[in-house]
């Protein structure tokens, strides 16, 4: 194995290096220099993100245990980029007295989950897949419980770790069945040997549901809202974008490689799950009064939409999913950015507190409005194209009824997204959130998100590139 080969793993290697550097730097930055330390950490993540933009080669490492290519690189780029934005948005939270000391640990844990996701997406072997999954989950539970004076936070951590452990037990059972059938844990070998017997279907169901848990598809979603609400806001946005995204990506890869020959079997499963996920997510979202919980259910519904692209097992379907994730990242993080800014400034997280927000903070509420429109899929904001391509992907397979139900649900979602806009712009409050100035990193992140929402919709190159990248999943590797 040469150096250039090991370089295929640059994303993970750089992240590991970053973690180590932060670990050491944490000791050397004094208590009064936390802000510098924060910027330093952001800088490291920035380097990792930028390094991902260099053209990626495809290749196999460690006898096929690690596989990478432009598609995987792109997925990781999306995750890195989201992480960067989330970190930019979290200074407000970090700067609180009892968090300041622990920025280092927070960063380390967050980045190690990112390493886990990287390995998971690049896995070519069930062991790597499982390890990546666990590495992407266990530290998250600790992060959910990070705010240790808040019993809600601990509750969130407990719900996450117990259910995650349970679901990973289920995934493992599924893997063991697949192993029993194929005798190999390499995706490539397993994909060729899988036979469609009932046992393999059971294995498929178990692995799929285990991943559905991470993506928070109904009925495996119940943890999501509670954990989102209780966690520190930075982690909530991380869970709803990065963690969910990574699970979607690996689901795409596993379904289209290992279970590619069983696609007639997983189609109806996803079909039904899409319907209940979108519907239940929407119905729950309507009634929420806590903004984090609201966004949790909205992101559950969005996860259902994402599956519309997964059901189309072709390069086009994969591309629609990746594209939607990119758009979803911008929109959701814009919303979370605003929520996070408010939460850090005033500690308010109830939708009712947002009354009259436009009067006091017009710019932030405009960002929020744009984000809501994008999530609702109103053209010409990028969210529309994301959804539209997903619909096209499902329609291409002839699932009109499904598309119809999904589109109907966008109407319901429009209703509750407008509800937020109405609260901010129209409703009056005696004690509106006073005007405040966002800190610089937050401003940068919001500008990036807004530009992203507008530009990704209009630049067709992004989507074309994704289609091109997705082809490789179906052509040269398998």
């Amino acid at each position: 194995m040469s150096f250039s080969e090991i370089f295929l793993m640059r994303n993970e290697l750089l992240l590991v290096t970053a973690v180590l550097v932060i670990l050491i730097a944490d000791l050397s930055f004094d208590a009064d220099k936390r802000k510098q330390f924060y910027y330093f950490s952001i800088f490291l993540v920035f380097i990792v993100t930028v390094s991902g933009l260099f053209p990626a080669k495809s290749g196999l490492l460690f006898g096929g245990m690690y596989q990478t290519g432009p598609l995987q690189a792109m997925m990781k780029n999306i995750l890195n980029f989201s992480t960067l934005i989330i970190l930019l948005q979290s200074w407000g939270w970090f700067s609180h007295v009892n968090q300041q000391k622990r920025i280092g640990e927070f960063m380390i844990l967050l980045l190690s989950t990112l390493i886990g996701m990287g390995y998971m997406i690049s896995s070519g072997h069930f062991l790597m897949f499982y390890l990546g999954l666990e590495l992407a989950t266990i530290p998250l539970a600790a992060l959910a419980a990070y705010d240790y004076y808040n019993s809600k936070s601990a509750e969130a951590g407990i719900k996450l770790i117990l259910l995650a452990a349970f679901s990973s037990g289920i995934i493992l059972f599924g893997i063991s069945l697949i192993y029993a059938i194929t005798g190999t844990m390499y995706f490539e070998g397993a994909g060729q040997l899988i036979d469609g017997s009932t046992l393999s279907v059971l294995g498929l169901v178990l692995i799929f549901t285990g991943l559905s848990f991470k993506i928070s598809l109904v009925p495996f979603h119940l943890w999501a809202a509670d954990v989102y609400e209780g966690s520190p806001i930075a982690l909530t946005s991380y869970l709803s974008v990065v963690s969910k995204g990574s699970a979607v990506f690996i689901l795409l890869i596993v379904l289209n490689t290992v279970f590619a020959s069983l696609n007639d079997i997983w189609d109806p499963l996803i079909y039904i799950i899409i319907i209940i996920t979108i519907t239940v997510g929407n119905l729950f979202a309507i009634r929420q009064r806590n903004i984090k919980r609201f966004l949790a259910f909205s992101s559950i519904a969005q996860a259902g939409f994402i599956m519309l692209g997964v059901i189309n097992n072709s390069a086009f379907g994969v591309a629609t999913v990746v594209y939607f994730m990119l758009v979803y990242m911008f929109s959701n993080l814009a919303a979370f950015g605003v929520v996070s800014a408010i939460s850090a400034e005033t500690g308010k997280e109830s939708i009712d507190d947002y009354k009259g927000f436009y009067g006091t903070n017009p710019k932030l509420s405009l960002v929020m409005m744009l984000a809501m429109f994008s999530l609702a899929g109103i053209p010409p904001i990028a969210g529309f194209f994301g959804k539209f391509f997903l619909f096209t992907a499902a329609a291409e397979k002839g699932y009109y009824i499904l598309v119809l139900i999904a589109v109907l649900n966008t109407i319901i979602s429009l209703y509750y997204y407008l509800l937020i806009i109405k609260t901010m712009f129209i409703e009056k409050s005696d004690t509106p959130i006073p005007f405040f100035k966002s800190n610089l990193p937050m401003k940068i992140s919001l500008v990036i998100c807004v530009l992203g929402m507008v530009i990704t919709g209009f630049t067709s190159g992004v989507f074309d590139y994704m289609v091109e990248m997705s082809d490789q999943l179906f052509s040269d590797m398998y």
Partner: protein
Amino acid sequence: MGNYQYTIWILILPFAAFLFTGILSGKLKPSFTAAISIGAIGIATVLSYFAAIQYFFLNASESYTAIEAASFTWYRLSDTLVIDMGILIDSISVMMLVVITTVSLMVHIYSTGYMKGDDGYARYFTFLSLFSFAMLGLVLATNLIQIYVFWELVGLSSYLLIGHYYQKPSAVAAAKKAFIVTRFADLGFLIGILMLSYYTGTFSFSEITDPNGPLITQTIGGVFLGLSTLTWAMILVFMGGAGKSAMFPFHIWLPDAMEGPTPISALIHAATMVVAGVFLVARMFTVYSLAAPEALEVIAFIGAFTSLFAALIAITQTDIKKILAYSTISQIGYMMMALGVSGYSGEAGLGFTASMFHLFTHAFFKALLFLGAGSIIHAVHSNEMKDMGNLRKHLPATHITFLIATLAISGIPPFSGFFSKDEILAAAYASNKLYFAVEYLVAGLTAFYMFRLYFKVFWGKERTYENIQESPASMTIPLWILAFGTLFAGFLPFSHLVTTDGIPFDTHFHWNIALPSVGIALAGIFIAAALYKKESARSQKIAASLGAFYSVTKEKFYVDEIYIFITKKIIFNLISMPVVWFDRHIVDGFMNLTGNTTVALSFRIRKFQSGNIHQYALVFLTGILIATLFYLFYYPN
């Protein structure tokens, strides 16, 4: 053919105005914002007229062909399926350009007076530019996706405009309702698009509507519930059109949308957005006519039904803007019906031509009516007719222009509405006698309720007004310009310009239809006069001015009584009131009920989220079990 490259500026200018004023909002003086918007739409208007003249009159060849003035590939979904962005120049899009830019320019100018002193003055003009851009993009679209994108953008900007008075809860509710109802209808449109693209592998209009193209010459897709897949797709596309054009049962948003500023109603709810649905059907007309005639029958039925339905409701309304709103719904029903009964090519396509003709003339007189209503509201500060009366003394300019528009919509020659309505009735007569009868009746009803409005507002009892005065010149000049259009638009030889297949044909005047239709219009006017002019001291003078027909009825008093009996007791109490009740409680109620049920349902199922980990794990496991059992019994390998 000619070069139409410059038409791209028609799109760019309003958009640039929107961006410029939007980004620099707060930094510009409001009047400057307005000036930029007016400048942009003004130049666009000039360019549109130039394009129309070039296309219709400098055209050397015998027929009109569609020209793609600009096009570039935007998204490439597969090798064949691409999304383009471009500009399609053909007779209907050029006609729409003229309509939109004219009305929009008038509304822009009018608004400088009407909105003076409003807090959101600059914001208003910014969104007005956005709306104009969206509407122009919609009519110029070369393909289904482009039209859909602009379609939704139109919805979005109208949402922003209807909700302009965002401090007013009713305005916000109306904006939301308009947005959601039309979005709901659009889901049909979207699925229709997806189905069409799935079967044809293209989004492009030029390929889809090619009479020799595969979509029309070959049968594609299966049969579902007795109709072909294509027919279903086209019905779904029409559903989107029905939403925007406020066809039954999606019409419920339009009356509520009157909460927006009145010039907006003139622009959006009279001349542009609401005719988008008619435009869409016209755009796809080749497919409807040649490959999905069943869908066309649906359109004709819904159009006819809506026109009657809305006309009956309009009779009972007391809010002048609501009357105009229902009248708009009714008139658009006319256009839809005309499309629905139309055939393809030559004189058989009279319905199509008539529909476009009526769209054209209606845009002028309905915009004029709305702007006139705006002028009245501006003066009286109320929408209710009970606060108005004898206004002709106070608002002379508004009065004359309003009368012209009222005569036009009632179909009195030589005003423009007469000519277009005549063609529609002729087309209906040639195709379906029942629809003809309905539309004939509606023509009478229209004359009745419009003159009811006219008499109540401009004649009738004098009320106490606070410092009432005629609107400023910035408002009356657009009124005069539109009145001019209303007077002369009817003389355009439309059958030479806009036809189904681009080949002009000669149409003759249908005396046998025109005379009775004028007759019923006059009858409607007389009933209205008999009922509503009485409060006026100068009733004798109207009687004289309205001619001999009226005096005959006047002398025979019992006839008058019969009229009153028929109108008040039968039409009013027995027909209109139940229809209104049905509209408010059943149609609207159903929509509200759907919303409420959704919310109630969301309360019901909240127990699933009990916060208990055990229950979460249980649901998790049950989910897996159900999935597994499903496979065990449905997919036994």
